């Protein structure tokens, strides 16, 4: 009984810590997007929110999800990794083309 309580408490603490970490990276990404001087550094800030922000949030939620659902959460994160890295490269190329005009 007691060990079960400790496990539940540990799960709560784990979720609070990791999800807070994730929220912090979202904050960092947004601040970077607003404050950084040029497009490529802003892109760098953005990818932190994509990778680590969503990653930590997803990680923190995993203990609350049963088998299939946990798998889906991981899938969501992996999909975002795939697409955001591709989109980032396309955006960087666009920024490169845009710069002479700016």
């Amino acid at each position, binding site marked *: 009984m007691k060990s079960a309580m400790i496990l539940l408490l540990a799960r*709560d603490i784990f*979720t*609070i810590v990791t*999800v*807070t970490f*994730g*929220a912090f990276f*979202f*904050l960092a*990404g*947004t*601040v970077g*997007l*607003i404050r950084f001087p040029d*497009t490529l550094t*802003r*892109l760098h800030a*953005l990818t932190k*929110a*994509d990778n680590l*922000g*969503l990653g930590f*949030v*997803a990680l923190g*939620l995993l203990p*609350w*999800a*049963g088998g299939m*659902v946990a798998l*889906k*959460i991981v*899938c*969501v994160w992996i*999909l*975002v990794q*795939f*697409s*955001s890295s*591709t*989109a*980032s490269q*396309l*955006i*960087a*190329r*666009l*920024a490169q*083309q*845009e710069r002479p*005009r*700016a």
Partner: protein
Amino acid sequence: MDNFLFAVAAFVLGLLILGLVCVLKGSTLADRMMSAQLLGTSGIAALLLMATAVSEPAIIDVALALALLAAFASIAFATSSGDRQDQE
């Protein structure tokens, strides 16, 4: 725990407003696309948080759909903008 998850969702959505301001200020196409992408990721994170907070696993399917389609949308942005007749 539910309240904590909702609070984080509210926080991420609050950051969304900041991101939107960035879209507003954004002078270049690339900046606007970056903001749009951040919005997509924040939306997905908010959905995951809400799904856990209200214990409704079907919401994760929405996040899954959004992950695929937001990717498609941002790629559509990036690839179609070079094909435009006028660049404002």
